[in-house]
């Protein structure tokens, strides 16, 4: 995909010419576009999400800003996709490319490993090269540590982290008196482990008769058949399942539960979009519950409807799967306009404590203390009834059944941020 202007020239330069090294040096002209590096997988197994996120971001930049005269008095926003193949080493390389080409903003999200590498990488780069600082906008990596012990001044997170989402989920579960016995199962890595630990901590605290009857971890991507796990869930007498699984592990788990004829609600974080909704289909009906900050069925606002329709008209094969990408872009532009410049330090300072009304009409807030975004969180259910905005062109979609207001999502943070000297 010829996503970037003149790539051939640039790399011929790198590969063959010696003197053209200066091509990489940053250029900042007044009407120069503001280039945003989007470091996410564009090839390999995780590319689907990265591709569609890139399209949403590009479309939003066009729709809201470029078609209306740009930002900061006429500068265009240009999103440049830099493929990191979901790997840490490639992410570091793409960060260097972004720096080389004078990009000052990096948006990234898939995989907490990548986010953590980019966050520490950028922190050190900014410390060592104060003249060419970079800002990281994380739209999806939810390892709490990124805004807790490992927080960085140059990192802003626009998604709720795992513990926040688990808290909302716990509220929702506790509000349903029919649920007394909960089984937790997850992939054996940071996120799955975090979900398990948070569930064990939060659920019994919400309601006295709510108990955890299983807390199981399995190696990620290694389970061929989930039926043995389903048997254990049955044997435990659980009446709800909580899982942090995503991808094929999520689909297989949901199908296993449906095949075994279990009528259990399943509480999840990543059980939709990019083919999963279509594949789940009937097996997920009223069973799959998902915590996220999207809220689309019924459409909460005309603006959200217009944006979605326009995007789907331009990209018939895609959905607006992660509207928080639009929030990320909007908050970034708002901060730039407030700072009156695209200087990362000024923009970062303007981002802190900023508030925004999103296209769904909700208020969101960037907490200055740890650079964690707070927004109303929703629990939605997988269904084909009352769905105006379906996913994967399947007729199936997510209908909001529970909303936790922004104030109720606030959690304390252990972040001790090193702030740059003014």
């Amino acid at each position, binding site marked *: 995909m010829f996503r970037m202007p003149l790539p051939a020239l640039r790399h011929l330069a790198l590969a063959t010419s010696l003197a053209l090294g200066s091509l990489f040096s940053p250029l900042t002209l007044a009407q120069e576009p503001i280039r945003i590096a989007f470091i996410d997988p564009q090839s390999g197994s995780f590319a689907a999400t990265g591709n569609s996120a890139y399209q949403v971001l590009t479309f939003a930049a066009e729709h809201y800003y470029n078609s209306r005269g740009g930002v900061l008095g006429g500068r265009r926003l240009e999103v440049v996709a830099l493929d990191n193949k979901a790997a840490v080493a490639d992410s570091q390389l793409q960060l260097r490319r972004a720096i080389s080409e004078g990009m000052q903003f990096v948006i990234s999200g898939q995989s907490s490993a990548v986010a953590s590498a980019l966050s520490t990488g950028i922190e050190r780069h900014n410390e060592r090269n104060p003249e060419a600082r970079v800002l990281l906008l994380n739209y999806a990596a939810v390892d709490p540590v990124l805004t807790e012990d490992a927080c960085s001044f140059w990192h802003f997170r626009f998604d709720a982290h795992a513990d926040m989402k688990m808290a909302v989920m716990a509220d929702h579960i506790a509000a349903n008196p029919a649920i007394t016995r909960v089984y937790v199962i997850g992939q054996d890595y940071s996120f799955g482990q975090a979900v398990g630990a948070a569930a064990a901590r939060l659920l019994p605290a919400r309601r006295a008769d709510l108990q955890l009857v299983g807390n199981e971890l399995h190696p990620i991507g290694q389970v*061929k058949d989930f*039926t*043995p796990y389903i048997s254990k869930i*049955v044997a435990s007498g659980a009446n709800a399942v909580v899982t942090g699984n995503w991808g094929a592990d999520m*689909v297989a788990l949901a199908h296993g539960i449906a*095949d*075994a*004829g279990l009528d259990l609600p399943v509480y999840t974080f990543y059980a939709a979009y990019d083919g*999963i909704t279509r594949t789940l289909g009937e097996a997920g009906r009223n069973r799959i519950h998902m915590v996220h900050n999207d809220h689309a069925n019924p459409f909460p606002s005309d603006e959200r409807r217009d944006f979605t329709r326009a995007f789907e008209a331009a990209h018939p094969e895609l959905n607006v799967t992660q509207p928080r990408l639009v929030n990320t872009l909007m908050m970034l532009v708002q901060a730039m306009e407030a700072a009156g410049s695209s200087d990362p330090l000024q923009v970062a300072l303007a981002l802190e404590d900023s508030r925004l009304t999103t296209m769904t009409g909700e208020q969101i807030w960037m907490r200055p203390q740890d650079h964690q975004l707070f927004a109303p969180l929703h629990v939605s259910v997988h269904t084909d009834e009352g769905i105006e905005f379906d996913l994967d062109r399947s007729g199936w979609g997510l209908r909001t059944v529970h909303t936790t207001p922004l104030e109720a999502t606030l959690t304390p943070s252990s972040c001790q941020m090193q702030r740059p000297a003014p």
Partner: protein
Amino acid sequence: MADALLFATLNGLVTGLLLFMLASGVTLIFSMMGVLNFAHASFYMLGAYFAFSLSQHLGFWPALLLAPLLTGVLGALVERYGLRQVHRHGAVAELVFTFGLAFLIEELVQLFWGRATQDFRVPALLDFPLFTLFGQDFPAWRAFMLLLSLGIFAGLYAGLTRTRYGLILRAAITHPQTVANLGHNVPRIFMLAFGVGTALAGLAGVIAGPVLGTWPGMAASLGSLVFVIVVIGGLGSLTGAFVAALLIGLLQSWAIASSVGMADVLALLGVSFPPDHPLRDLWRLTLPQVAPLLPYVLLVLMLLLRPAGLAGNRED
């Protein structure tokens, strides 16, 4: 506990037999050609994808027949135009070729079908619970998988012992030179064996695709496991592969059903660790947590203690 054990056993059998369908192909190919086919599970994946696409136009049952055939033809072509070319460069090159092929097939599948899990479903005819025990359904499809794998095993056994081609195949397994000297076209037999082996893998893919998921990672997660089975069973031994496949299927299933953990074992020994001990992750391990990794542990142990495998007689 008894109910969990019963279901664990049933599921272990289903998985074990499925694994055997793959392992039998790898064994057949290894015995004849001395090639460990790393890409075997990729043909399993292709079987599932072919069946998915075919079933959208022709319905499931014709796909059940056609997809393995298509896979087998593709496998034969790979042998004829790929492996035979590489054979001259030695065993390492052959293994590396199939390794690269596995990688390539995964990429091609992603190119043509996309990266998401496909909506490949059990046919309506068999989409009902066969029986319900202790509150859990046993789907009719799983029973069908069980029967079909047993049927394949019986068919393979009969084919190898009763038919002329089977006799030549078996002879070629043990004495390839002699068979060639007797005037049989050994390259063609090789191509046939590769075709049959990959068709079996394709069939396994067709019946497993709807329940285990049809997605680009389905081969990678199974490929190494099939290898492990063939090695544990003893390279070149069908019986060994059968025993090893069932063993691993059941072992994983039972391990998941259990809830024994290191902490329990240590408690029995009267040892305990503070929660922030550097080895805390180790003593928190439970058997179900590591169940999918048990085959690899078994492999390493086996190669250390009995390098020839359960029923193997070949050293290398």
